Structure formats: structure tokens, C-alpha cells
């Protein structure tokens, strides 16, 4: 911390031996094995190269070294060595800097820093080549048809993937570095003449305010700083790993936040209903998309309310209308039904958590054991009644039908709370629980945006767009929740100029 906090900024000296001493201390050259350092004599003067092994492209570095060495064969003017070296650094991304701190950051970011004896500035050449994977289809947002590329851990590639879809010159990608030590690249992405300037300013100032040593969990850590989330289990931000989804939100007027080292891009502002939509719906005919969406809504409702509702009818069977009287177990088993419900739900949760970090090779065995154990033996030994398995399973499948993983987990907690309330207070508990669920969501804000919009506060047009997947040519206006500067999507407007 001492190094980065020092205010009297260290300047690069013109003597190369002095510089060498400074950099040796600062970078720990003799300790860390991955920091490279090379001296070349050019026309009798020493030229130093600093770089991090794992972050530079070896071919480019070799090429540049070669070019610099060749100076000895072609040039003679010994008084102009710095200028000649600068001229020979064959790369399109070049910069001169004076501060030692900046130079150190650049080296640590994978750039090549060149120091020439007698020059009090450093030449910085961008030869970065970060280790990483190519774009792949994200696991959580698969579609049957459509583009299969996804964001990667590299912010530059992600910017490229987005620009490929938004060629508008008004697309802005502001970049800033967050974290005193990690110096993580964070980028705010928006279309300048659509997005609400107030929103951009809010996001920007929230990010600038962050004072922390590092963003180890990159986007997630950043999210916790931007939206003080401690109070609610509900996800206040929607992530996407799909460039097409990201660009769709840019066109709508959202502001996106990208963090280097994370393939997830944050969409702000987010409402509850952003978490119940999926790219697949937009890859299908509107009619089918709507159908898929309704089934999905049904699944989400089932994951929330079906289990407590069923429990209520088991506890108070005389409430059922005659034609539904068959619901409820004929034999309640040896364990109180509410305990069964909670146990079965918890068991499924074990399974889910276990599945996350079980190696693929063993997961088949895991599935088998779980299915046999919970499904059959638990019934045979009299722990569970068969009906409870059915309802817990429907609720679980409903959770998996929720497009947003974060929301499905939050809803699971809500479901368990409803089950406990129903078991304790009957109808009173269930009804008050459901009302409380709605009221808590209504009270939640994400970046000054009501979470339950467009249901509460009600907006007819936007609600229609959520209930029905509307075909794109008919969607003439951008959603008002993002306060777009220009809300026309089709036809003549500032857009078509």
C-alpha cells in the first residue's frame, strides 16, 4: 500500500543505472521469476527492456528486439539514440510516460517498457497477449439457434464482440481501473445518445468511489460495491455472457458494466422481470416465444407457491373444493408432513450444491445414489410419502426453469419461508407470507429503479411486452424505465439520421 499511496510521484531519471536500481526495488526483479529484463547495446548506449513473461507475446517481443538490434547495422548518429529507438519500435500502440508508478503498472499489465540511457521518459509498447480461452457458448444461456459466441475473461475481446454487433460510433466504452493493488480494468458501456446521462453518472461515480485493495471476484465484488446488497436475497443485477443479449440491452438504453477477468457483463438497471426472460424466447417465433415464456412463468410460480399451497391442503383438507379433494396423501407417514417437506427440499439443495463441485466423472454416480436414496428407499422406510416427492420435485424443476440462477436460489429461500409460515399459521401464514413477498419486492430498488416495475408501479405497455414476446418490428419504443434520451426504435427519429 505504501508504494501506491506515495504522493511525491517518482519520475524516471535520465541515467539508466539509476533507473535500473529503482525498477529492481520496485518490481522485485531478483525475486519474481516471471518478470523479464533484458539489456541491449545500441550505438554504444544501453537500452533496457522490462516485461512480464506470461503476459507478453513472445513473437512480438523478439521482433521488436530484433528491430532495435538492427539499429547498429543501419544507423550511425550516436547523439540521437532515443529518437532512433523510438522510431524503430514497430508497433501501432505506443506511448511515452514519465512516472515510475505508471511504468510499473504498465509492465504488470503485460506491456513492454523500454528505457534508453540518457532519456528521462519510458517508451511503452503494447505487446499484451493474455492467457485465455476463445469465445464459447455460455453454459447458462444456451439457445437452440443463434450465435454461439460468448464473452470471455478478456475485456478487450469482450469489447470487440460487442462492437461487432453495435457499429454505432456513439457506443462508448469508458475504462477505469479499480483496486489499489489489483488495478482491475472496469469498463462502462453505453450508447451515448440513448442512455440516460443520470444513470451513466450514477454508475460512474459509484465505481469511482470504490476504495479496496483488489476485486478478486471481479464482477461480483464490484456489484456488491455498486448496489449495497446486504439487505435482500434477490439479485439486483442481471448478468449475461451473451454478446447479443448485451447489445440488445445497449439498444434499449441500458448501461452495461464489464470487468476484466470475468465473462459476465452486468446489466443496469435491472428489475425482477429481467430475471425471468431468456434469449431463447427471442430466437423463436413471437407466438412460440410467448408460449415458452408463459410456461416459464408457470414454472416460477410453481417453484414459489405450489409446495406451501399443497402443504396447506394437507394440513386443512376441508378447505379443498370437492373436485380437488383427491389432493393430499392418504397416509401421512411417520414424520410430520412439514418436516418431510423441509427435509426433501433440503435434500434437493444438498444435491444441487454437491453437483456444482462434483467432477463430471463422479456425477453420474451422485445422481444415481440421490435418485435411489431420496426417491425410493426414503419412501420404503417410511420417511417420506410419495406425494411429497412429487411436489418437491415440481418445485425444484420450476426453480431450474427460472432463467436467472440467482433468482431461482432467492425464490427457493422464499419458498422455504412460506412453507414454515404455512405450517405455523395455516391460511393466515400463507396469505401474509405471499403479501410480504410482494411488498418486499416492491420495496426493493436497484439503482433507484423499482424492482417490480412494470407490475408495481404499473406500466401497461411494458407489462404487455413482458407477458407477450412482441415481435421486434412492433416494438417501436424503448422501455421508459431506462429513461432513454431518445425512445424511438423504429421509423423516423434521431436514430435514422
Amino acid at each position, binding site marked *: 500500500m505504501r508504494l501506491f499511496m506515495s504522493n511525491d510521484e517518482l519520475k524516471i531519471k535520465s541515467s539508466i543505472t539509476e533507473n535500473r536500481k529503482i525498477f529492481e526495488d520496485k518490481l522485485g526483479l531478483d525475486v519474481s521469476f516471471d518478470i523479464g529484463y533484458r539489456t541491449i547495446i545500441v550505438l554504444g548506449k544501453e537500452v533496457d527492456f522490462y516485461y512480464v513473461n506470461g503476459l507478453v507475446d513472445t513473437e512480438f517481443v523478439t521482433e521488436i528486439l530484433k528491430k532495435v538490434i538492427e539499429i547498429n547495422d543501419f544507423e550511425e548518429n550516436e547523439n540521437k539514440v532515443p529518437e532512433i529507438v523510438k522510431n524503430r519500435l514497430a508497433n501501432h500502440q505506443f506511448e511515452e510516460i514519465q512516472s515510475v508508478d505508471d511504468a510499473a503498472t504498465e509492465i504488470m499489465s503485460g506491456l513492454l517498457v523500454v528505457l534508453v540511457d540518457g532519456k528521462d521518459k519510458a517508451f511503452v509498447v503494447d505487446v499484451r497477449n493474455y492467457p485465455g480461452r476463445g469465445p464459447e457458448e455460455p453454459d447458462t444461456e444456451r439457445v437452440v439457434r443463434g450465435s454461439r459466441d460468448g464473452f470471455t475473461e478478456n475485456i478487450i475481446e469482450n469489447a470487440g464482440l460487442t462492437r461487432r454487433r453495435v457499429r454505432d460510433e456513439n457506443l462508448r466504452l469508458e475504462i477505469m481501473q479499480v483496486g489499489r493493488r489489483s488495478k482491475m480494468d472496469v469498463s462502462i458501456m453505453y450508447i451515448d445518445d440513448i442512455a*440516460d*446521462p*443520470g444513470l451513466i453518472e450514477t454508475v460512474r461515480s459509484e465505481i469511482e468511489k470504490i476504495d479496496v485493495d483488489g476485486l478478486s471476484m471481479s464482477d461480483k465484488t464490484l456489484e456488491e460495491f455498486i448496489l449495497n446488497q446486504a439487505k435482500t436475497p434477490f439479485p439486483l443485477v442481471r448478468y449475461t455472457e451473451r454478446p447479443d443479449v448485451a447489445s440488445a440491452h445497449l439498444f434499449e438504453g441500458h448501461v452495461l458494466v464489464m470487468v476484466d477477468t470475468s465473462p459476465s457483463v452486468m446489466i443496469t438497471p435491472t428489475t425482477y422481470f429481467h430475471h425471468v426472460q431468456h434469449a431463447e424466447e427471442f430466437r423463436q417465433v413471437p407466438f412460440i416465444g410467448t408460449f415458452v415464456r408463459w410456461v416459464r412463468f408457470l414454472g416460477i410460480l410453481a417453484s414459489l407457491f405450489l409446495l406451501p399451497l399443497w402443504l396447506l391442503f394437507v394440513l386443512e383438507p376441508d*378447505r*379443498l*373444493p370437492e373436485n380437488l379433494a383427491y389432493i393430499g396423501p392418504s397416509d401421512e407417514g411417520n414424520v410430520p408432513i412439514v418436516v418431510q417437506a423441509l427435509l426433501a427440499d433440503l435434500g434437493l439443495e444438498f444435491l444441487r450444491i454437491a453437483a456444482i463441485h462434483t467432477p463430471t466423472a463422479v456425477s453420474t454416480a451422485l445422481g444415481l445414489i440421490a435418485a435411489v436414496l431420496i426417491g425410493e428407499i426414503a419412501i420404503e422406510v417410511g420417511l417420506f410419502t410419495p406425494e411429497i416427492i412429487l411436489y418437491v420435485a415440481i418445485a425444484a424443476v420450476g426453480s431450474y426453469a427460472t432463467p436467472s440462477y440467482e433468482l431461482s436460489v432467492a425464490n427457493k429461500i422464499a419458498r422455504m419461508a412460506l412453507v414454515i409460515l404455512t405450517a405455523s399459521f*395455516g*391460511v*393466515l401464514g*400463507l*396469505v*401474509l407470507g*405471499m*403479501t410480504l413477498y*410482494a*411488498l418486499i419486492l*416492491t*420495496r426493493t430498488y436497484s439503482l433507484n429503479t*423499482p424492482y417490480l*416495475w412494470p407490475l*408495481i*408501479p*404499473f*406500466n*401497461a405497455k411494458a407489462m404487455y411486452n413482458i407477458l407477450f414476446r412482441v415481435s421486434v418490428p412492433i416494438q417501436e419504443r424503448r422501455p*421508459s424505465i431506462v*429513461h432513454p434520451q431518445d425512445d424511438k426504435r423504429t421509423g423516423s427519429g434521431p436514430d435514422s439520421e
Partner: protein
Amino acid sequence: MEKESSVFKKGLFAGLVGGILFATAGSMAYFLSFSDVSHASFVFRSFFDGEWTTGWIAESISIVITGIIGVIPALIYYLLFKKLRGMMPGLIYGIALWFIVFGLLNPLFSYVPDLFSLNMDTIATTMSQFILYGVFIGYTISYEHHDQRFMRKVSQNN
């Protein structure tokens, strides 16, 4: 941007939708006997006799009628309370509406038991519907109202 008149229209429309939405919830609660009364108890059962008043046709027609009636509280909220912010005023408004309907207006409806003979479940269920309805219209009106004022401020700055 949109004019103040659109807030008015949106508010009334929210009253209609809110009425229909929570009347539907009320019908479901009645059907599952969470509650001894539903809106149809007020609209039909208190004034007409006969088997049909408990059937689903009466219930459906009653949903529509409740929706239309639901515009009136929205209008009153718009006229009196649109300046209030957030969700709490709507919540209180909903509770107040419940007391007006179940307390003050109760003698008008013969089929509805009076305030003190209602059971706890019925009170909770109907009260929840009124609260959600109140929040629905109240929050919508105040959000639209303040949102538009906010927008005007922004456009002046530009």
C-alpha cells in the same frame, strides 16, 4: 415528454387493472375457501338470491365490475395523495379502504358478516388484497407523477 394528463389516465387505468387483478386473486382465495367473502358477496350475493350467485359466471362478471369500481379509489388517490412518495402511503390507503368497505359500508351488504364476526383468515386474506391493491395504484400514481417531474428537470438541464 408526456403530459400530466397521461398520469391521470395511467392512474385510472391502473385502478381498473388493479381491481381486476386482485379481484381475481380474491376469487381464487374464495374458491379455495381462504376467505368466506369475495367481491361477489358485495356485488351480487347481498342483493340477489339464487344458486347462480355462487357460480363461476357470477364470480367472473363480478371481477369485471370490481375492476370498474376499482377506478374510483384510484381517482381519489390521484386527486388527494399523488404527491406522496413510495409505497407506504399506498399500503395505508389500502388498509383504510378495507375499513371503509368492511366497516362503514358493511350495513349495506346483507350477505357480508359484520366486522367483528369475521374470522381471522378472512380478514387476513381480504386485507392483503386491499393492501396490494392500494400499493398497486398508489405507487403507480406517485411513481408516474414524480417520474415525470424528474424528467422535466432533466430536460431543463440539457
